[in-house]
């Protein structure tokens, strides 16, 4: 556990960096706006905002890399000796999913904490009660997104290996980002643009879209449903897995 909690420092660092980039040294914001910045409120669906997406999505990518083998690592190296002792693999897998969710929540909160501490020390932030609502939406949507993506990487890795899993999942995420950034150009008119955003999971991470169309609750629901679906597939994969290779990555010592 201590090994994974170190990565929370990375999250806090990313939060602080975002504040340096967007508000330091002389822009004063409310605490609600601080969270909106982290949630890409200034990122519209045009290609010119891609650098902002890259900067603000990077902490999520770090989490996916850190935890992309959180469950899968048990299927490498000591897999025979671990699973020969586990009578109920599905129960174990679901417990690991819950722990992963816990880590995702702590990670997102660490990002907010890092940003908040930096902004407070720089005296660039003031309290706004709206912060709690923004915080709730940000934490729930982003944590669920992290768990859905990371769990999917783990599950695909069990079926193939980590390289294939990371490639497939990150390619899917990058495609969503690319489509998002082109939405206003590709899909003419307000209706077309709305539909493109409505069916793009990435768009639910962008609080500009959420504020524009008031779809916070839909965002939470969509990502929770994705988490449940991936967990269900994971249960099937884990319960039916045959331990024929001693190590999916290297097949041996």
């Amino acid at each position, binding site marked *: 556990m201590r090994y994974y909690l170190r990565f929370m420092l990375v999250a806090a660092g990313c939060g602080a960096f975002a504040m340096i980039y967007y508000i330091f040294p002389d822009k004063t914001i409310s605490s609600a706006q601080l969270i909106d910045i982290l949630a890409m409120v200034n990122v519209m669906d045009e290609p010119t905002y891609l650098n902002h997406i890259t900067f603000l999505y990077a902490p999520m990518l770090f989490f996916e890399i850190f935890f992309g083998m959180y469950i899968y690592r048990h299927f490498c*190296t*000591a*897999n*025979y*000796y*671990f*699973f*020969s*002792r*586990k*009578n*109920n*693999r599905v129960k174990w897998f679901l417990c690991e999913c819950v722990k992963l969710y816990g880590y995702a929540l702590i990670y997102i909160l660490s990002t907010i904490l890092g940003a908040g501490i930096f902004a407070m020390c720089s005296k660039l932030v003031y309290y706004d009660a709206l912060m709690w609502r923004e915080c709730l939406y940000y934490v729930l949507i982003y944590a669920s997104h992290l768990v859905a993506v990371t769990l999917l990487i783990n599950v695909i890795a069990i079926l193939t290996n980590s390289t294939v899993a990371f490639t497939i999942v990150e390619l899917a995420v990058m495609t969503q980002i690319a489509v998002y950034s082109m939405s206003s150009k590709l899909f003419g008119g307000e209706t077309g643009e709305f539909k493109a955003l409505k069916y793009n999971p990435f768009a639910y991470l962008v609080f500009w879209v959420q504020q524009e169309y008031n779809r916070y609750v839909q965002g939470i629901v969509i990502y929770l449903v994705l988490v449940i679906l991936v967990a269900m597939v994971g249960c099937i994969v884990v319960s*039916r897995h*045959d*331990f*024929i290779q*001693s*190590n999916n990555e290297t097949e*041996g*010592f």
Partner: protein
Amino acid sequence: MRLDVSNVTKKIKGKMILDNINLELVSGRIYGFVGENGSGKTMLFRAISGLMRLTSGQVSVDGQVLHKDISVLPGLGIIIENAGLYPELTGLDNLRQLAKINKKIDDEQIKEAIIRVGLDPDDKRTFRKYSLGMKQRIIIAQAIMEKPDILMLDEPTNALDENAVNIVRDIIDEERKRGALVLIASHNKEDIKLLCDEIYRVKDGKVIKQEGDIA
């Protein structure tokens, strides 16, 4: 304890790996499995232990059916050839991680198992820095540390020096006297001759009881 293997078959991508295996095994005996490379010995252990699903047939322990009543054999200690432990952990920490799963034993008992195989429980080296012989010994320690009712050993004396081979043979004999049901797969004819009460030959996925001396 009685372990029944009934009409067990395993096919992988249409190829017959285990072909209608039938065995009746009881506690307090050592069963040897001999055969050429690729004959199916390790696959047989994977199938019996529950680490691999069966195409047909069943494995049961005292009436409890694998993959129906239980997911893995209860009280199982296993070694699979060429399977490792967590490379970034020391030998002791590796065994602690595994012991945490069922919480049957304490730190003292883990250290006892490590000493029993001739290693130092306070060795700070990680598993990746162990020699092949040390790796094999610590893997044997993880198999015996929880005093298993069923012990499956796939090539247990691989990479071991003469002294370590004698230690392992003594351990296997002690486990049998303790009442464990022991299965050994080995190319080492001396191990099989010295230790086993019954010998089976595995060939092309079939298991045949060996009568007389092994060739």
